[in-house]
């Protein structure tokens, strides 16, 4: 499989009053034209990994890596100006909460058109047509009305689909989706996933899917990285996630209530200090 993105030994550090806090500690993985899931609890560094790839971590945060290569070009060495043409156009990111990612005082249409025209030389009319087309692609009924609406008039599910439409307009090679469905209902969740799945298949896009929902990731992704305290503790094929070996993964799986296996008490995760000391597992192919 051809490698789109190669991340080697990525560290994210935040200096604080109590010394340096390492949010991500030496993570390595590659991404091909596949759906790669990153799971872990909050604070495990999964979102920071996604943001570090796009160099979105601002000082005082420090990002260090041996390399973050996008098709052979090391993003760590790119000047900020060139980085801007990578963001959005080649790698884009869907953030967790659509409410905080859309501009509240701009109509949705204006925002999508702006995002599109920033990356292309299209005229306003072309951009409008393209935006309508994208909104339809993420199964928004009545896209003309949505173009005129403001973000607060949209529900969470609609907002998330709008974000996805906006991110996909420049036709990126890689999409980083940070908990794209955790604010959504199960029925809408399915729709959003189907949209992303279709894009991976049709366009040969690489997808990094960040989530804390193990069942969802097992169902939806091809490969899964399990993160704990800034390190990758286990890598496995998504369909074999339920046979995972690491006690942390097992603990997470067992703590989920299940409809088909009623229990009086749920298993509570017992944390072992060895898990965070153990070196990161490399997920480079």
């Amino acid at each position, binding site marked *: 499989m051809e490698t789109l993105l190669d991340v080697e030994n990525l560290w994210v550090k935040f200096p604080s009053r109590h010394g340096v806090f390492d949010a991500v500690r030496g993570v390595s993985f590659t991404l091909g034209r596949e759906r790669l899931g990153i799971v872990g609890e909050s604070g495990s560094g999964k979102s920071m990994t996604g943001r570090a790839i796009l160099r979105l971590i601002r000082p005082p945060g420090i990002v260090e890596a041996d390399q973050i290569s996008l098709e052979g070009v090391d993003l760590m060495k790119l000047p900020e100006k060139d980085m801007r043409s990578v963001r959005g156009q080649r790698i884009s990111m869907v953030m967790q909460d659509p409410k905080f990612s859309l501009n509240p005082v701009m109509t949705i249409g204006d925002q999508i058109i702006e995002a599109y025209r920033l990356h292309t030389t299209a005229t306003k009319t072309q951009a409008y047509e393209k935006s309508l087309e994208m909104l339809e692609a993420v199964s928004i009924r009545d896209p003309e009305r949505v173009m005129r609406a403001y973000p607060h008039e949209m529900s969470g599910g609609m907002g998330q689909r709008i974000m996805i439409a906006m991110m996909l307009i420049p036709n990126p090679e890689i999409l980083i989706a940070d908990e794209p469905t955790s604010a959504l209902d199960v029925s809408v969740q399915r729709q959003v996933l189907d949209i992303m799945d279709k894009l991976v298949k049709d366009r040969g896009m690489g997808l990094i899917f960040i989530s804390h929902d193990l069942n969802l990731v097992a169902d939806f992704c091809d490969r899964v990285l399990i993160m704990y305290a800034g390190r990758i503790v286990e890598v496995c094929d998504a369909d074999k996630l339920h046979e995972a070996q690491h006690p942390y993964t097992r603990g997470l799986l067992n703590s989920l209530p299940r409809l088909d296996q009623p229990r*009086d008490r749920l298993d509570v995760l017992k944390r072992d200090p060895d898990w965070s000391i153990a070196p990161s597992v490399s997920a480079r192919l």
Partner: protein
Amino acid sequence: MSMLQINGLNVWFGKNQNRVDAVRQAKFTVAKGESFGLVGESGSGKSTVLRAITGLAPNWSGTMDIDGQSLTRTRPKSFFKTVQMVFQDPYASLHPRHSVDQVLGETLYLHGFSDIDARVVKLLDDVGLGQKFRFRYPHQLSGGQRQRVAIARALAPEPRLLLLDEPTSALDVSVQAEILNLLADLRADRGLTYLMVSHDLSVVGHMCDRLAVMNNGEIVEILDVDALRAMKASHPYSQHLLEASL
């Protein structure tokens, strides 16, 4: 006798052409000591039912009986001693500038307890936090710890009916398991009645004995957990919801 009986409940917001009927003709009964679940998509009106019971949704019609007592527009003080609510987002439901001690102490004071000091200690022990958390502020606590404080606050007046509005949806799965175990233990110890709202069918299946499925403001079906586990819903919407959540 039933702890909570709701009959023909309508809740609406706005008026004239802006009127939204959030709940229409809801009817269900929760027995004493039972744990009852409300499930549905967002916007189906499940949280609104809880808010109507506590008095946070002022426009309602129909009857709501708590332990045989009919509710009126104004809630008597005894109501708040019987019914308490735990909210969805533990990050938003605690005052950021009140320490845990102040949060619990104020609640106890308002409910007229005199042995506040001993009760604060007891409440913290009951929710598995312990004394060392007593003088912390919310920002010094994790999400799970905050939800424990919120539960302790709800338990302070020694209620008999606890309304739980998505108590674990903002938490990680490992923390969710801790909170669900805590809630199950508290119910067993104190003989509490739960009315729990969740969009997660497996959580409701774990916690509740019976559940109502809501869609578009109406209760479409009431079924027990065995039927839920066997995936035997009679209404097409609840069947659809069951299939989507697998």
